[in-house]
């Protein structure tokens, strides 16, 4: 329950609503409690004396009580809904902001699919529990205590029946609470398993089809599907025992009251109206306990949601702005790595980057080459401070990147990530994403430089063409070119292209390269590429090998000094003999 309680602080701004709801509920409960007593008066006082006056006055009171009660109930609902939904809205907002404050390392740890669930259905679950809390969870204890008092007043000699049956019910409720939580957590887990399998099979449908793994997938799915069924049946069957048992206890109390109370009526200890009122109070109270039991089981489900939400709220961003960080930053673009070492948190394996030092002068182009996993992407990710160095430091214009606010630092950079993610909206919106105030002309210019203009114009709506979520209707190369345009339009001091042309054909890439040479003349650019042709013109080529800087220099210098570079060059552009020694004239 602790996590749910912690989330209650989000109700605070709406405390007036949250207070008004139970108060109005109090009104409803009071009116509920009055009814059996009025009934008793009619039966015991009016029937024997045949006094119509008593009947009408008490009957009138009952109608009035019903009307007042409904006002209380309606008011409570209105306020409870407002309080809970506004609280949910605030909670979502806080979570959303939290996600934005997280670092890349945090995001690596949190599964994106789950993160979406936490912001959507988990928050909804909390909203609902607050609603219930403000309405029914207030109602049940109030009614319970109220009817207990009323029954003692009505028929003190029978009141012990209450205390005899209540513990029985409470034991049952407790049993549900204890068992429900782990059970429904297992159901949730099984459901996650099913959803993950579906998700994966959908995303990988090409692979499934290409390898004809339909039956394999079906079998895999059958496993998780069956598991979900069995877990759910088991969980829901728990209620098969509990609910009838609760009903039995409630009605059992009524029988006992009827028999023992009936005896007392016969002896003249109490009147029949008193007995009827007592039975009414008994049923009212015990029934509330029953509802309460059902509710408590949903409380334990909400706790699971609360736990997931709190986990996000408690995640400390691994990258924070220093309080004295520079709010503004307009660098020339001199980037220096000073003995930088980096390893991903939690991994005890060797560092991804190890003692890297180099300087990139403003206006220069730095190319990074190296094997898979040699640390190229990691290296450029340190410049916009997506990750923090483990040792050493990265400076821009001599300022440690940790001394600049992240937003200011990143505004000085144009970055095209390895995977070109686009947003829904038009192509124009996507290019302009880099700089929202860019004019249409600037959008076109950026697209032209990125060699995207021609294919954009081939769409019926040109720059106003909508692209689906993650750009489903664009080819990989087209997405990459839009991502480059998006980076170029920011007019950054530092441009970072992380393998941004891998899906673009050589011809187009060459033209992009040409355009970039012109645009990037004034800025510092970092280019990760696989093709030597892409990096031939670079002012500085960094060859990475196993996280270390293996060689550094221009194309001509490296050809002469670096065997690794020579090998790469030969394999791609080499004179006739490829790595396997096969002759070209096969």
């Amino acid at each position, binding site marked *: 329950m602790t996590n749910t309680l912690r989330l209650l602080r989000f109700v605070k701004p709406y405390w007036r609503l949250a207070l008004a709801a139970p108060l109005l509920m109090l009104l409803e409960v009071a009116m509920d409690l009055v009814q059996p007593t009025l009934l008793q008066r009619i039966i015991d006082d009016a029937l024997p004396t045949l006094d119509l006056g008593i009947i009408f006055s008490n009957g009138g009171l009952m109608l009035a009580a019903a009307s007042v009660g409904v006002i209380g109930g309606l008011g409570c609902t209105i306020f409870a*809904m407002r309080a809970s939904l506004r609280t949910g809205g605030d909670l979502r907002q806080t979570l959303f902001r939290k996600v934005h404050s997280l670092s890349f390392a945090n995001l690596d740890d949190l599964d994106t699919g789950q993160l979406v669930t936490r912001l959507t259905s988990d928050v909804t679950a909390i909203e609902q529990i607050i609603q219930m809390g403000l309405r029914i969870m207030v109602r049940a204890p109030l009614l319970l205590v109220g009817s207990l008092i009323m029954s003692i007043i009505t028929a003190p000699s029978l009141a012990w029946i209450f205390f005899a049956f209540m513990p029985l019910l409470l034991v049952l409720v407790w049993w549900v609470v204890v068992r429900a939580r782990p059970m429904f957590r297992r159901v949730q887990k099984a459901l996650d398993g099913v959803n993950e399998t579906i998700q994966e099979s959908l995303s990988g449908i090409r692979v499934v089809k290409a390898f004809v793994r339909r039956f394999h997938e079906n079998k895999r*799915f059958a496993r998780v599907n069956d598991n979900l069924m069995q877990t759910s049946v088991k969980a829901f069957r728990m209620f098969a025992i509990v609910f009838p048992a609760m009903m039995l206890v409630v009605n059992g109390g009524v029988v006992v009251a009827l028999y023992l109370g009936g005896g007392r009526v016969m002896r003249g200890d109490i009147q029949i109206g008193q007995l009827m009122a007592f039975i009414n109070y008994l049923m009212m109270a015990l029934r509330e306990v029953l509802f309460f039991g059902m509710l408590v089981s949903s409380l334990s489900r909400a706790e699971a949601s609360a736990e997931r939400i709190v986990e996000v709220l408690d995640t400390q961003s691994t990258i924070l702005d220093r309080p004295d960080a520079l709010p503004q930053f307009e660098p020339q673009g001199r980037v220096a790595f000073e003995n930088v070492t980096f390893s991903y948190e939690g991994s005890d394996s060797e560092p991804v980057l190890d003692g890297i030092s180099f300087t990139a002068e403003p206006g220069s182009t730095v190319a990074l080459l190296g094997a898979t996993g040699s640390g190229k992407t990691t290296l450029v990710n340190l410049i916009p401070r997506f990750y923090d160095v483990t040792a050493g430091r990265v400076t821009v214009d001599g300022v440690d990147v940790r001394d600049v606010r992240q937003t200011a630092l990143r505004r000085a950079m144009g970055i095209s990530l390895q995977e070109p993610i686009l947003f829904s909206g038009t192509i124009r919106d996507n290019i302009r994403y880099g700089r929202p105030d860019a004019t249409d002309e600037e959008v076109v210019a950026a697209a032209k430089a990125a060699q995207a203009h021609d294919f954009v114009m081939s769409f019926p709506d040109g720059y106003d063409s909508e692209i689906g979520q993650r750009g489903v209707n664009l080819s990989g190369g087209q997405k990459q070119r839009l991502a480059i345009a998006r980076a170029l339009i920011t007019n950054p001091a530092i441009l970072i292209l992380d393998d941004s042309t891998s899906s673009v054909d050589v011809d187009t890439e060459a033209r992009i390269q040409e355009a970039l040479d012109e645009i990037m003349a004034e800025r510092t650019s970092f280019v990760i590429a696989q093709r030597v042709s892409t990096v031939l013109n670079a002012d500085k080529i960094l060859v990475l090998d196993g996280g270390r800087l293996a060689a550094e220099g221009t194309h001509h210098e490296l050809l002469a000094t670096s065997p690794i570079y020579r090998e790469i060059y030969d394999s791609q552009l080499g004179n006739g003999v490829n790595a396997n020694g096969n002759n070209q004239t096969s």
Partner: protein
Amino acid sequence: MATTRPVSTTRRPVRQGGPGHGPGGGFAHIERPNNARGALRRLWSFLAESKRDLLVVVLLVLVATGAAVILPIIQGRAIDDYILKGDLPGLGRIALLYMGVLAVQASANFGQHWLMPAISQRTIRLIRKRLFEHLQLLSLRYFDSKPHGELMSRLTNDVETISMMLNQSATQLISSMLTIIGVCFTMFAVNWRMALVTLVSVPMMAIVTRYIAKHTRRGYREQQATLGIMNGIIEETITGERVIKAYAREEASMAEFDVSNQAYVKAAIFAQTLSGVVGPLSGLINHLAYAIVALVGAVMAINGLATVGTIAIFINYSRELGRPLMMIANLLNTIQSSLAGAERIFEVLDEVPELGEHDDAVSLGDIAGDVVFDDVSFSYVEGVPVLKSVALHAEPGQTIALVGPTGAGKTTIVNLLTRFYDVDEGSIRLDGVDLRQIDRDSLRRAIALVLQDNFLFAQSVMENIRYGRLDATDEEVIAAARLANADHFIRRLPNGYQTELSERGSNLSQGQRQLLAIARAMLANPQILILDEATSSVDTRTEIHIQEALLRLMEGRTAFVIAHRLSTIRSADQVLVIDDGEIIERGTHMSLLAQRGFYYNLYMSQFKGHVDPVMIPAE
């Protein structure tokens, strides 16, 4: 209990741009089935498997409801016939009878709650299974045209809605209706005058409920629409979070979210308040009936038209009336929205499976790998041809390099060869047999692909490679990984071959993912090999080793390579230059250079004079 609310709050339509390039826009969810009866009938066909259990459940509900209706009468009798007449032994007997009925009720309730989860979960399992298996049969054309999120939503949320309905709503609806019928019937049987008086408030409430329900439906529709937009933003933001950070666009993103969040809160307050009002109103029915019973009952008792026991009976019934009435109103909403979900599910099930097959489709045995494209034309969207009269002939064991600008149609050739799509005109023949005559599964088993998008599963590295051939031993998997030069990096992973990959293999670099895909293809050991830009993001040094391995693999196999690498192109038996859906040049690397045409220009632009002139053959 009165807490059954329309569960639709967890449905989340995903904001999607429409497919294609036209104006997309979100799609609105209308939570009303177009053909409720049709959807019900089909749902029934899934339930039919549990017909016998279902019958038992209905009987049990009948028994339980009957008991609930009888209990107040026994109570009334106890008051009139025994308590007021001072017959204590009689009271004892009737108390025992009361107990007996209680026991019957409890057993019936137990049986019903025991059976129903099994029925509903079995049904849901069946629906999920059918859906999943059906999806596996659908063509890529279908997946390309349907936004991923929407399909996902159908398979999860819509199925979940039905599950909720079967679990709770179905039995509650039956028991609510039976209760009302039973109570009304008994009331009239016991004392028709008082029955009429008790029911006086019902028509009034029915009108109010109807009115509320109408507005509630509208409110919920609005709520779902705003929720859909908001969830779309959340989903997109989280997927694109890295880009947002890279461009420092957090502020703008928050502003966009806040607007949608506020819109949702507003719509939700309206809808949920309206539906929440139903609870207190049902309380009002109870209390009104209660008061009227007391008032009128007492007057009638004075006139000898009713007894105290009768009043007690009606007092009990007055509590039983409001709840089932309101519950039915609520349940109808829930059921309606789950039927709308059911319809969306049936829509998927109604999709025609992948490209029909000839009945006499042949299963491929050992094939030589002779591939012929005979004047093949194809378009994804009618009127926009992607391939125009493409003709090619790959002899067994040859390597065919496909070269050309993005969007020229290279990937389409691959899609046709694997029969992800069928040709519009012309034919493709493998060893002289039209592809459409070949059993699709056996065709694909003969082909291995390394695709642009190297999808990996969230399983161990070992299992991911084994995907190429399920019965491969660990040793064979490792051997394949060695051939693909993936062994080295795999061993450096925290748990080696047993390392679990995260979603889509995102804990590996793009290059590493590609190496695994190559290993997977190697293990499949196919007669035909298709490499679709497979090496584009593997770094050059690793690629040297891959080239080596691939050459080994391609030996004796027909290979189609969408190539960027000079070395690949050079060693190809045929180079096909494709532009705008047509093969415009063909030959070997050297002969094409000598032509000084499109290929020559392509080649020159890549290397921009950095290549020794010697390499280019003289005219």
